């Protein structure tokens, strides 16, 4: 029986049930990718048993995610678990002779190996290569974001880049490519969840390396197995803020998406405007804190629900770490980044204040009604360093909302 959850996010029925009914009877603890690694390594979270799926494993427990019929790519997340759990159980459908040639997690951490028929349906995990969005609004936003990046001066030889998942994020690369090849710019690394599109950029020489915690599609699985410059990294190496170094802190440019962004540039990517838990923290707070320039790309509204709002439902990524907002209706620079504002002004890029941005949106959507909450806490949002960033309260109006699903 599950009595508690520590996670990056919650979606679907569980997220709804926890937000509206507190089914666990206690708060879910939400952590960033880096915060998760930090909490485990610092001993704040004790793992008694870790069950780890591996697509290939030798009889001593050396394992990877790139060989075998169920290859899925990077083992960035379980790497930390294996090192700190009391007992480690590997679940695999492909046992190879000792020693396995490519080792993601080594045998010294492994207690048991369980062989099963199949560890999962790869067709459902990954199909072909992730395509860049064809949605015209997303493409417009991506194009403008690329213009902002170029004008900001960060797109230069050796720069590093990461983009979150979501409509416009990945498409930004598409518009950077032309500028990079015209000016003979080669980036040092791109990171994050790796897709076939980033692999193309690596293979075409736009970036020298990829740092991969989670592999998103089959094209990227092939690449991480075969390309020495496609590097597997643990989630701790990715984003743990208490490490001596982590890749999130080496970023020049980070592109984020958002469920909500407010007048203070705070980002919410976890809860919906009706208070339901439907997203995740992911690596957004980690990369926003680490990157020299953090740009949010988002449409101003989705099905009337405004994304640019007065105040976010919950703060996931603090506005102090967010520099620019790009939507289909305009570009707003965080007043704390006057240096960026000056660069954009000099490049002739038109910007509007975040207050005007909000007004543009509210004129169309109208002001949403206030959702009523109880004083029952159903979620705790931890910042990457373990401090409490925000609390999620149980909603009061769930009866009305549920009957209209």
């Amino acid at each position, binding site marked *: 029986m599950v009595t508690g959850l520590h996670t990056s996010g919650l979606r679907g029925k569980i997220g709804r049930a926890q937000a509206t009914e507190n089914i666990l009877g206690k708060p879910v603890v939400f952590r960033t990718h880096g915060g998760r690694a930090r909490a485990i390594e610092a001993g704040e979270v004790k793992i008694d048993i870790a069950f780890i799926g591996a697509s290939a494993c030798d009889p001593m427990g050396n394992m990877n995610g790139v060989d075998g019929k169920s290859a899925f790519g990077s083992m960035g997340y379980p790497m930390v678990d294996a090192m700190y759990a009391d007992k480690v159980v590997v679940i695999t459908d492909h046992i190879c002779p000792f020693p396995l040639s490519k080792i993601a997690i080594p045998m010294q951490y492994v207690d048991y190996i369980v062989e099963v028929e199949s560890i999962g349906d790869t067709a459902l995990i990954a199909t072909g290569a992730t395509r860049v969005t064809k949605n015209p609004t997303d493409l417009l936003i991506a194009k403008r974001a690329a213009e902002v990046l170029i004008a900001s001066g960060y797109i230069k030889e050796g720069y590093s880049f990461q983009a979150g998942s979501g409509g416009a994020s990945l498409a930004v690369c598409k518009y950077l490519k032309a500028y990079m090849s015209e000016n003979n710019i080669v980036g040092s690394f791109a990171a994050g969840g790796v897709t076939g599109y980033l692999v193309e950029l690596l293979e075409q020489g736009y970036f020298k390396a990829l740092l991969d915690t989670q592999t998103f599609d089959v094209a990227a699985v092939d690449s991480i197995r075969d390309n020495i410059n496609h590097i597997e990294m643990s989630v701790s190496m990715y984003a743990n803020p208490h490490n001596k170094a982590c890749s999130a802190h080496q970023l020049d440019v980070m592109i984020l998406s958002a469920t909500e962004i407010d007048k203070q540039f705070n980002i919410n990517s976890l809860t919906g*405007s009706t208070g339901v838990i439907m997203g995740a923290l992911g690596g957004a707070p980690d990369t926003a804190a680490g990157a020299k320039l953090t740009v949010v790309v988002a449409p101003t509204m989705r*099905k*009337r*629900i405004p994304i640019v709002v007065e105040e976010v439902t919950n703060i996931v990524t603090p506005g102090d770490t967010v520099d620019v907002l790009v939507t289909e209706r305009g570009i707003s620079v965080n007043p704390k980044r006057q240096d960026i504002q000056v660069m954009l002004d000099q490049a002739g890029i038109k910007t509007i204040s975040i207050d005007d941005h909000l007004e543009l949106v509210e004129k*169309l959507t109208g002001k*949403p*009604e206030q*959702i009523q909450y109880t004083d029952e806490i159903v979620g705790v949002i931890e910042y990457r360093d373990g401090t409490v960033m925000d609390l999620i309260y149980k909603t009061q*109006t769930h009866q009305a909302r549920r009957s*209209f699903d």
Partner: protein
Amino acid sequence: MRAICGTEDASDVTVSVLLEGNGIVVNLKSKNKPLFGRLIEAAVKESCLEMNVENATIDVNDFGALDFVIKARTKTAIREALKQVNA
């Protein structure tokens, strides 16, 4: 006789108008009801006022439409319903 206008696409709305009843009755179905229920209903009622309709039962099935879409769909549905009544 009922007249219907709109589609079930995202950001659209279907409005079904029956020119019967006592006053304007709006039956709203929308995922956005907790956030925008009052505004959606107000847009429908405003459209009725502008079209001089005093008695109608209006079923609104909203998929995230903005007010100008809701009003356009409502007015077209009313116009169609009026045509049927006058035919």
